[in-house]
């Protein structure tokens, strides 16, 4: 019974058990697990050598040795490929094998006990652990290379503040020898002004089990204090308190100096903007105002908060708001400059005129808007007053012209009547006075002068109107010949010689009537003031000045003038150089007025009894 029980236990054991009997190693007892291992073909009593499985082939020699020597044999993690089944590919399995010699009571060798335990799981775990160790070592090496080549100091510090690890960069940076005691020296290298703060902050962080992040000045190998940033995080071992802090120290000196300079620059610019008695503001790329200067709140009586991103628009005169808003949206969209003149409400409700200007700045930080509102109220009001006065003067002037024109026109009819009556009187009446001839001539002359004056007055007003006429490119020669045709009677009477030299500057862009008027007046003047002892010789020359501007010379050999204010005397209306010569004294005034109003000037040189030269500078 017990025997049977034992057999049953052995048969179903999860470890393989077999006995091999005799020098031929015949199969004895083989349990189920071992049978599976040996390939299932284990007929009791048959020699093993006749039914070799993979395992048996491997072990045959060893088995024979054990049998002969009587020494047990143990193989650990013996690998045995398990044949592939339908479901799974062949997988290596591992067994601990033991070969024990079996002895009878007389110590005679009976055979072998073969014992096999499946240790596949243990073996696989061991292999995994090995691979993991290799990977860990690789990662560790990589981490070390990274920590020791990165341009920052890395460290590990324990809960008491003792440095467990400091990367070699610490020694490079501080210039301390490798034998230096980091824990003792590090605090001494911190700038005295920062030391207490840093020690306190790191102690507090460690006591609270949190990380830290602060900047301080650390002494470099050359004795210079450099700003560094120290950051560390605790390594947590829940639920216990952290035991280590790992961190890095980075030099941030240059960034900090730069940031400091920027801060200073910005503070100065802001101070500048706040000191200017103008409304200054900046806006984001989207067009929302993000800064108003101090003066803005003083002027508007509203804080930046109250004004908000678009509050400026509500300060404008209500009727101007919609158009100003549309223009702003458009400028923000296109990047065009914004410019306009608007009335802006002051804190006391008074609207004052402002020029609002804004320009977009585009750089690497993206577009931003900078704007200013300049108070031009005084100038604007002054301009309005001036404009009103100007308009009034222009109107008065126009009225005067009209009056003169009308008067000269209206006076023509009575003059005509007077002339007719006088002629009639001369025809029908007889005079006994011997001076009658002289008197008649004097009346005649007076009437002629009266008529000339009226014509000149009308011409002046006419030319005033023609000043507004459009300009065109004119051929000087043809206009001059046209004028001479009109003066043919005088030219012939005086036997005058008129030379036209227009080839140097043959054309001029000018008002046609104006040019004709200038030529007519200058040439007729030259004829009028001819010297009684010689026929007039008139030279008309068109040329270019040194600056390349066109000019016209009209030179005669006449009476000449006595000039008080050379070389550009003012020619006043009704001023006459030669009272003996008939004329209204309007001619030169007219010429000067035309030339001046077209942006040029009239110059004159003259010698009494030799002649006069007028030089028309058409443009300055």
């Amino acid at each position, binding site marked *: 019974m017990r025997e049977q029980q034992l057999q049953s236990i052995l048969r179903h054991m999860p470890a393989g058990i077999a006995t091999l009997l005799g020098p031929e190693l015949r199969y004895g007892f083989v349990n189920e697990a071992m049978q599976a291992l040996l390939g299932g073909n284990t007929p009791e009593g048959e020699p093993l050598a006749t039914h070799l499985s993979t395992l048996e082939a491997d072990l045959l020699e060893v088995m024979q040795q054990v049998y002969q020597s009587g020494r047990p044999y143990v193989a650990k993690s013996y690998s045995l490929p398990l044949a592939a089944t339908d479901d799974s590919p062949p997988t290596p399995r591992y067994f601990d094998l033991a070969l024990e010699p079996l002895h009878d009571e007389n110590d005679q060798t009976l055979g072998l006990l073969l014992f096999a335990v499946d240790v596949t799981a243990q073996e696989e775990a061991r292999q995994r652990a090995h691979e993991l160790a290799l990977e860990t070592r690789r990662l560790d090496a990589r981490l070390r290379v990274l920590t020791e080549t990165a341009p920052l100091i890395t460290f590990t510090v324990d809960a008491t503040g003792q440095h467990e690890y400091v990367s070699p960069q610490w020694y490079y940076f501080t210039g301390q020898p490798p034998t230096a005691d980091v824990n003792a020296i590090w605090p001494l290298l911190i700038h005295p002004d920062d030391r207490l703060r840093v020690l306190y902050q790191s102690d507090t962080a460690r006591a609270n089990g949190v990380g830290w992040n602060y900047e301080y000045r650390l002494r470099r190998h050359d004795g210079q204090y450099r700003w560094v940033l120290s950051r560390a995080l605790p390594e947590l071992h829940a639920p216990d308190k952290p035991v280590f802090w790992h961190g890095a120290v980075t030099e941030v000196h240059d960034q900090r100096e730069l940031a400091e300079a920027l801060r200073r620059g910005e503070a100065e610019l802001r101070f500048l903007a706040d000191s200017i008695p103008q409304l200054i503001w900046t806006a984001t*790329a*989207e*067009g*929302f105002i993000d800064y108003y200067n101090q003066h803005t709140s003083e002027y508007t009586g509203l804080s930046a908060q109250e004004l*908000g*991103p*678009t*509050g*400026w*628009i*509500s300060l404008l005169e209500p009727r101007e*708001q*919609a158009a100003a*808003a*549309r223009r*702003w*949206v*458009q400028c*923000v*969209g*296109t990047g065009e400059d914004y410019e306009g003149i608007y009335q802006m409400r002051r804190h006391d409700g008074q609207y004052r005129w402002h020029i609002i200007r804004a320009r977009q700045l585009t750089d690497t930080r993206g577009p931003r808007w900078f704007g200013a509102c300049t108070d031009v109220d005084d100038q604007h009001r002054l301009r309005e007053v001036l404009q009103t006065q100007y308009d009034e003067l222009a109107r008065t002037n126009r009225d005067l012209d009209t009056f003169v024109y009308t008067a000269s026109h209206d006076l023509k009819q009575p003059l005509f009547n007077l002339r007719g009556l006088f002629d009639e009187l001369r025809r029908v009446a007889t005079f006994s006075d011997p001076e009658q001839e002289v008197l008649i001539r004097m009346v005649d002359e007076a009437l002629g002068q009266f008529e000339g004056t009226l014509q000149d007055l009308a011409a002046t007003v006419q030319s005033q109107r023609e000043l507004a006429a459009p300009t065109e490119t004119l051929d000087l020669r043809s206009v001059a010949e046209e004028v001479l045709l009109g003066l043919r009677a005088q030219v012939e009477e005086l036997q005058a010689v008129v030379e036209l030299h227009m080839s140097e500057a043959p054309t001029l862009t000018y008002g046609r009537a104006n040019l004709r008027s200038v030529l007519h007046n200058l040439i007729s003047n030259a004829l009028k003031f001819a010297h009684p002892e010689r026929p007039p010789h008139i030279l008309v020359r068109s040329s270019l000045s040194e600056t390349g501007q066109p000019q016209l010379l009209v030179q005669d050999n006449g009476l000449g003038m006595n000039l008080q204010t050379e070389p550009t005397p003012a020619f006043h209306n009704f001023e006459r150089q030669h009272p003996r010569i008939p004329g209204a004294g309007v001619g030169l005034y007219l010429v000067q007025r035309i030339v001046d109003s077209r942006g040029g000037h009239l110059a004159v040189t003259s010698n009494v009894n030799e002649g006069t030269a007028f030089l028309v500078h058409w443009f300055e």
Partner: protein
Amino acid sequence: MSRAVRPLSDDDLKALLEQCRRDNAQHEVTGVLFYSHGNIAQLIEGDPAILEPLYEKISRDGRHSNVVQLVNKPIASRSFAEWSMAFHPLAEEGFKALEGFFLPQHAPSTPDTMSIADALIVDLVRQAVFGPSEPTEALPGPARQ
């Protein structure tokens, strides 16, 4: 205004529209949301007791970042009758029939009841999201509705 963390797909936008229409109608929140190429801008009107937690919720929403509050002010009356959304879906067909959806060019123009300063905010936001409109649209004439 904010930036979407990743571009929103038509389905995302549709879901957002439906969710917001439902929630906002329930809480009587009105306004408009503009979306284009990751730019998001939203105007909401309602009871401060509703809006404050709503803004908190919106600003914490993981679908967008860089949330900027441009203006937050009491208003005498609402300018929007309901809550709607304007964006360019990839496939317009599926959206035309949806309530509260507009293509940007059909989005209701800024209400006249707003002050010009407030309307300017909406117009600038609209431009910041959708880009500058055509010159003809940039100058809405008197026919503005």
